[in-house]
């Protein structure tokens, strides 16, 4: 039996279950403990688990993320919150040179079982410094794994997989999804773990494939409704869920089925996730394509503040419908 749950509560349940499962799991970050989380994702966990397992850190991303990486080399399994993934820039050396490369440079003697999580999205009128969407950026570094759940069930399941993984996994959440609701399997039905590297068809369709991840999946589902009801176009929606590892087979399968692909990606076009997906489709399913692959990405400028137009900079159902109709 599943229950309706908010995205933020699904993540909290994942953290709570993993804190109970493994005594080496420790949640750390700015305001995660006594403040109950800047977005209430960790609400109640400090009260339940105490100061050893729920650790408030000062505003020192390079310091505490590096500390978590070092601790993980000794078998601690830190789950570290970046209040915004945008703050990756002040901890980049730790996130890349240390987390991604130390295993390789040691010839496999060391591994770094950490999770870094937090929201990575635009759309909240906080300007360019707080609106970076770096999943494509980090997926470009071998040694790292990246996922971006769109639904509460996937958020819980992917978080649990990330914590159990023995490599560094960066989970990209979304502040605009924290308050969304969805079905999440009940713990009494067993451990709900969604493996990294497995995409999910969120809507079946036959005329074209909308391929997305994160909040863009919801936009695709809304656009698919409009396309069906107003234009008679049947769109399939594939949710990548995991960026690296990437479910290439699922991507090719939907393209082979519909013969048309529109990629929707909140990253920018240059080097974004959709650029990689597009490459894989043309390389492995070229003969199945009836039209060029098209994309709806965030308009290629730093994130604008203005609440009047920020939504138009990002992928949204209207832009997706227009793109599909233009290329039909």
């Amino acid at each position: 039996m599943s229950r309706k749950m908010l995205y933020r509560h699904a993540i909290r349940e994942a953290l709570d279950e993993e804190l109970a499962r493994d005594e080496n799991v420790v949640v750390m970050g700015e305001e995660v403990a006594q403040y109950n989380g800047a977005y209430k994702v960790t609400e109640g966990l400090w009260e339940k688990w105490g100061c050893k397992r729920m650790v408030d850190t000062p505003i020192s991303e390079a310091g505490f993320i590096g500390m978590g990486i070092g601790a993980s080399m000794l078998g601690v399994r830190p789950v570290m919150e970046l209040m915004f993934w945008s703050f990756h820039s002040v901890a980049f050396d730790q996130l890349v040179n240390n987390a991604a490369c130390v295993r390789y440079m040691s010839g496999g003697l060391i591994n770094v079982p950490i999770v870094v999580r937090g929201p990575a999205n635009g759309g909240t009128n906080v300007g360019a410094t707080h609106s970076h969407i770096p999943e494509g950026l980090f997926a470009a570094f071998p040694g790292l794994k990246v996922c971006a759940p769109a639904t509460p069930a996937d958020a819980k399941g992917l978080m649990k997989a990330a914590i159990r993984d023995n490599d560094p996994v960066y989970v990209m959440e979304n502040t605009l999804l924290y308050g969304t609701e969805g079905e999440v399997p009940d713990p009494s039905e067993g451990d709900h773990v969604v493996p990294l590297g497995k995409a999910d068809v969120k809507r079946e369709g036959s005329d074209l494939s909308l391929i997305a991840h994160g909040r863009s999946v919801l936009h695709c589902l809304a656009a698919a409704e409009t396309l069906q009801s107003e234009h008679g176009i049947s769109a399939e929606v594939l949710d990548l869920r995991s960026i690296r590892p990437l479910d290439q087979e699922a991507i090719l399968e939907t393209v082979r089925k519909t013969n048309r692909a529109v990629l929707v990606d909140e990253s920018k076009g240059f080097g974004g996730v959709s650029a990689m997906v597009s490459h894989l489709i043309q390389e492995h399913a070229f003969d199945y394509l009836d039209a060029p692959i098209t994309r709806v990405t965030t308009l290629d400028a730093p994130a604008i503040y203005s609440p009047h137009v920020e939504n138009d900079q990002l992928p949204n159902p209207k832009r997706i419908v227009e793109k599909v109709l233009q290329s039909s």
Partner: protein
Amino acid sequence: MSLASADSPQLDFAGSPVNQSLSADDKIHLFREMTRIRRFEQASLKMYNKGVMGGFLHLYIGQESVAVGTVSLRGKNDHFITAYRDHGHALALGMSMNECMAELYGKATGCSKGKGGSMHYFAPDKGFWGGHGIVGGQTPLGLGLAYGLKYKELEGCAMCYLGDGAVNQGAYHESLNLAALFELPIVYVIENNGYSMGTSQKRSSSFRGCLAQRAEGYDMEWDLVDGSDLYQVRAKANIAMERARKESKPSIIEIATYRYYGHSVADANAKKYRTPAEIEKYKKNHDPIRLWEQRLLDEGVLTEEKSKEIDNAAKEEAAASIEFAEKSDPPTVEAIMDDVYWESDHNTEASKIGRHFFND
């Protein structure tokens, strides 16, 4: 430079308990370890200049007493981490010359299978966590080792070495605050050789007293050490290490030392930003190995013959490591793709789901 050493009169630290407990063999062992490091470095420089290896080579010659003195205090749960000038720490911690030299040669028999190079030696089984290339980048990692000890309720200490050039990196200052705030068992060891590459301390750092004294801003203990005196290195490092182990409190110790060569062998101006007279003065008056040797001769612990024998053995060991490295095979091209992900290396279920690698 803030030098504890220079030419000022010094206290005699031979009488400190941690030094009084040293047997004659222990003292000779310290001499042997410093000598081995120097001979290894000289051998690697010779081969580097022949063009047989790539990359950088940051030599430890002149600083041997720091690694050997501090490592000699190693306890069961102690961990060590340093930056890119890492050969001395590696050898002192028990890594073999063979695996270290082979790594310089980029051979599969190297300590990191030829994947790390000079700046990235590791031996977790010996408590050595690298070998890190970015200045100051290892300072939060060292903090994490201390965090791990405390989290697992083990009595131990994390030794995190950095150069005087690293003390102005933000990550280091964030680490100091966290170390004091969380009361973590760590000792930050500033190996102050006076120069951050070609920029002297005077031109790179603003400070009151000495670099370690910045600890006061973080409510942390600190000390200043003359690196040319091995007894002093041990005596003062021991206090900081015991503070970490017994009280779970961090410290900074600044050890005044000197490097005889450039920042790396690629340092084209190594002989321009320092006068030859300055380098000669250190070699003549402050060389940690010669001073230790003289001390042991004076104490009657060491003889000239024994000293020569140890030196010859170190030279032979270094020569043998060159032979080992030269005879070893390089990594295969296929090996490039190993050691990226733990899950893939172990062929786990997780590694079989989705595409992990994107080679066309």
